[in-house]
């Protein structure tokens, strides 16, 4: 059997991680390709961790946090939004396909949305892997 894709998900403790929890509580089925790492806030997201994930063989990385304005620490995700824009462009410049590095906002009540997000990321990364 072909090796399946691996995606590392960095989820913020207050929204997206709780959202992922809710997905499980609601018994919503979503791809198991994602391995979740809990981070305190997307504002804390260290680019080194993202690069480490890619270099240790992850096919995709998803970073998810609270919607703008909902950050537990008031403004962490605003800083992340800026750093994400720079990091994404730099990764693309170095030749990492844009489909492999994604960011979303998922709140604690959006269990269903989290499942959809993961499905979309998995589809995107699969389509990248196919053409690779």
């Amino acid at each position, binding site marked *: 059997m072909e090796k399946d894709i691996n995606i590392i998900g960095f989820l913020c403790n207050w929204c997206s991680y709780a959202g992922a929890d809710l997905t499980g509580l609601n018994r919503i089925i979503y791809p198991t390709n994602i391995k979740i790492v809990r981070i305190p806030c997307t504002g804390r997201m260290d*680019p080194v961790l993202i*690069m480490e994930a890619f270099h240790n063989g992850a096919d995709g990385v998803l970073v998810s946090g609270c919607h703008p304005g909902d950050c537990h620490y008031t403004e962490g995700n605003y800083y992340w*939004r800026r750093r994400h824009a*720079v990091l*994404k462009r*730099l990764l693309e410049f170095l*030749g990492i396909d844009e489909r492999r590095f994604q960011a979303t906002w998922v709140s604690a009540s959006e269990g269903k949305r989290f499942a959809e997000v993961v499905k979309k990321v998995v589809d995107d990364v699969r389509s990248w892997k196919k053409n690779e």
Partner: protein
Amino acid sequence: MSKTLQETARNLLAENKVEVIIGYAQGYDAFHTRPVFISNVEDVSKLIINEYCTNNLSVYLPIHKKLKVGIVTAKEQDLASIHELINEHQILEENVIIIEAAKQISSLSSELGEAQRDRGIDEEDGRQEAWKKRGYDMAVEEFEKLSAKERETFWDKEFERCIRCYACRQVCPVCYCPDCFVNRTMPKYLNEAVDMNKNKLFSLVRMLHVFGRCMDCRACNNACPVGIPLRLLTKKIAKDALELFGYVSGQGQEHPFSTFEKDELLEEIR
């Protein structure tokens, strides 16, 4: 050119305005210069200034921050680096006297010419072709038009040679952290093993750390012993800073990462 510089340096030292002068001295041949630290009036004759003064001397300022320093700047970017260090409170403005030699040097017109001068490559030398072939003169826009696969292959080939000597970090004026992330042991991001991916990781993260603070002085590009075109990356981050945040480094604007706007639309986040 060098005579006026020496005269200025002599006066500064004689009048006790500075304790040490950081400048350029003749290197091992006519095409190379080396940094020199002068605290005796007799030694000022060592100072020279010419088109081969490519090092960015402001890298020595943070470690001499307790002294009164006179510093020779050979490029506009060196000057900008000093102001950046002052803005970041690494050095005291009153402790630094800038001896501006930038305007005395006739600049070569093209970017390629500059890059070649930086590396002491002659125009007649056959290496110019090799230079072009390897894409070193490529503009960022041009490089972005390549496919992701082509870009990856390009950087793989370049970073394969990297020996992670960290020379690029050592010569960088804004890389003054005494505890760089690569030297940390908790967590240990990088070790001494040969690993091309880690080479890439180091350079990418360094670029993020100098984002918006890099003055594009080309010191890292010149210092690289294996000739990785780091200039391409520094040009890229400068372009991103301008496109995304309208930010130009060294202009006294607030750093894009230390502020935000609530309704801005950068890269799309679903």
